[in-house]
């Protein structure tokens, strides 16, 4: 079972990654200009009040002490309480992160659903009209900023055609997916453009491989040649790109959630930055970072499954 031991090895490799994430987060959050006390009390706060709050939050202790305190608590699953909202960070994150996760997953699915068939058409009609149209359209999609695409989609499909809600989030799963569709599409467009370009090039490359000729010489049905011999090999490089781009996708989710008023982790993140809500900011950064490295792991596993030469 080379794949199994490969997965175990990759899981173990995540431990140092997580420790590194903790250190970086801790340092970054403290490098932000301003401090929570001033943010809470306003510009004209008295020094005594600021000091009292800093003391209550443990922010007057040496950084290294703060770090170990921070690491110890995180290890026990305690991410502290939000300074602004006065509730536990963990419950906030558990409330908001799944929304972002769903948005990201939905947009990844949409991006793939757009990219894979169109990449095939573009590759097989290379340098013909269909190829130019597909590539031209995606080029435009790729060069437009996410928030701009979001506003256009919002104006056309939600405000004017009233096909989708203007914002918010539902309660049942179908309702949630319905609310998330436009933001997910917004997020998916530029992502699918990147995937499509890569997959098209990759398919063209694989199509010319000898083993595709051999598969043809075996008299296989064209569906088998397309899916088993061409797509599978072509996806190997696209999966790598997919993994590398997933961080960007989370970043895009933050912006999209703001445009569509989706109550996800992205909005929470922005609020926590403005409010100097260190515990929330820390908690979110760590969760997002771990989530991204988990998707790296997942794409690695998918890749090892696609290409047996990797898992050795």
């Amino acid at each position, binding site marked *: 079972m080379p794949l199994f031991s490969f997965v175990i090895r990759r899981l173990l490799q995540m431990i140092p990654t997580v420790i590194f994430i903790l250190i970086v987060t801790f340092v970054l959050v403290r490098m932000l200009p301003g401090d929570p006390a001033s943010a809470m009390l306003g510009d004209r706060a008295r020094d005594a009040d600021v000091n009292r709050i800093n003391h209550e939050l443990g922010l007057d202790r040496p950084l290294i002490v703060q770090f170990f305190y921070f690491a110890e608590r995180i290890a026990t699953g305690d991410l502290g309480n939000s300074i602004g909202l006065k509730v536990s960070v963990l419950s906030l994150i558990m409330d908001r992160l799944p929304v972002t996760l769903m948005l990201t997953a939905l947009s990844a699915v949409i991006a793939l659903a757009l990219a894979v068939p169109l990449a095939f058409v573009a590759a097989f009609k290379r340098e013909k009209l269909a190829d130019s149209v597909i590539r031209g359209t995606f080029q435009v999609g790729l060069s437009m900023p996410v928030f701009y695409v979001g506003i256009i989609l919002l104006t056309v499909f939600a405000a004017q055609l009233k096909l989708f809600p203007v914002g918010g989030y539902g309660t049942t799963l179908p309702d949630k997916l319905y609310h998330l569709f436009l933001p997910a599409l917004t997020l998916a467009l530029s992502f699918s453009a990147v995937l499509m370009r890569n997959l098209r090039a990759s398919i063209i490359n694989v199509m*010319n*491989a*000898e*083993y595709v*000729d*051999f*598969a*043809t*010489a*075996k*008299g*296989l*049905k*064209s569906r*088998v040649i397309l899916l*088993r*011999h061409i797509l*599978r*090999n072509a996806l*190997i490089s696209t999966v790598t790109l997919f993994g590398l781009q997933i961080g960007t996708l989370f970043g895009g989710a933050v912006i999209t959630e703001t445009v569509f008023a989706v109550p996800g982790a992205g909005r929470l993140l922005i609020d926590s930055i403005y409010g100097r809500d260190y515990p929330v900011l820390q908690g979110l950064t760590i969760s997002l970072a771990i989530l991204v490295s988990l998707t790296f792991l997942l794409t690695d596993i998918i890749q090892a499954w*696609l*290409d*047996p*030469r990797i898992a050795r």
Partner: protein
Amino acid sequence: MTASTAQTTMSDGTKGLVVRGLTTTFDTTRGLAIAAADVDFDVAPGEVVGLVGESGSGKSVTLRSIMRLIREPGKVSGRVEWGGRDLVAMPAEELRKVRGGEIAMIFQEPMTALNPVLPIGVQIEENLKAHTGLTGSQRRARALELMNIVGIPAAERRLDEYPHQFSGGMRQRAMIAIALACSPKLLLADEPTTALDVTIQDQILKLLLDLRDRLAMSVVLVTHDLGVVAATCDRMAVMYAGRIVETGTVAEVFARPHHPYTRGLLGSVPRSGHSRTMLQSIDGTPPSLTALPQGCAFHPRCSFATEICRTDRPPLDLIGAGRRVACHHHEEVAAAEPIL
């Protein structure tokens, strides 16, 4: 050698493979490359035909053209008759059934012809799935049987392994197993034994001859090894710069080559004793396919060449039953002293 089988025809009256005027060109940046020109040859049921010639003479292109595997922008014209039907003009679905089922091909490079991400077993079984109604377990059993036939040890385990886990020789055999999976009526074998050592080469060739006898399978065998031709083929065709320049039974061609190029190839082969000798290199280099010389393409390297060779291309003339040669001076060549 069982040359007599060459005369038999299949009960349903098909004539095996008939290739007429097969021409394959590639539009390259340096001009039109004529990789195969006016190729004519027949392969009767149960016959083994050797196709020999220097590197780049168009042997692989000819096999690929027969299987209609030449991609755009390559162009193929001419006729390839199989069972009375023309493969060149055949509709896609009909052609799919012929490929792998009735006509199978062994590629020259097993390293690149096998799909790197699929287990060998899958690559054998998908062939069976495309052409037979066997169930999953029957396909597995047949795959196992094929692995044993081509001499891959530990077949059960190896079915689940990937090409990169196979050695060169094992890959070669795996490819032969794939090609033979559906018991084809015609096997196009592009140097099937080059990567193998002599004993295994003999085993594989014996296997092919055995299948020929049992299934009346015809074989077109591309090889550099004239010893292999002598040992396994009924008839042979010699290619030079994309054209067939001489055909005949192996015995006739070896005994009395009528083309100076064939004569050159045979030059180093001892008439008796050691049979295994690679093609002898002939002085000079083959011409560029985009700038073939006027007249006979071989004339710049030919010691028999005269004025006519520089101006007129010799046609592939019939000089006896099943014996053809394309040379203005073939009688002179045939009468010349053996080079030995």
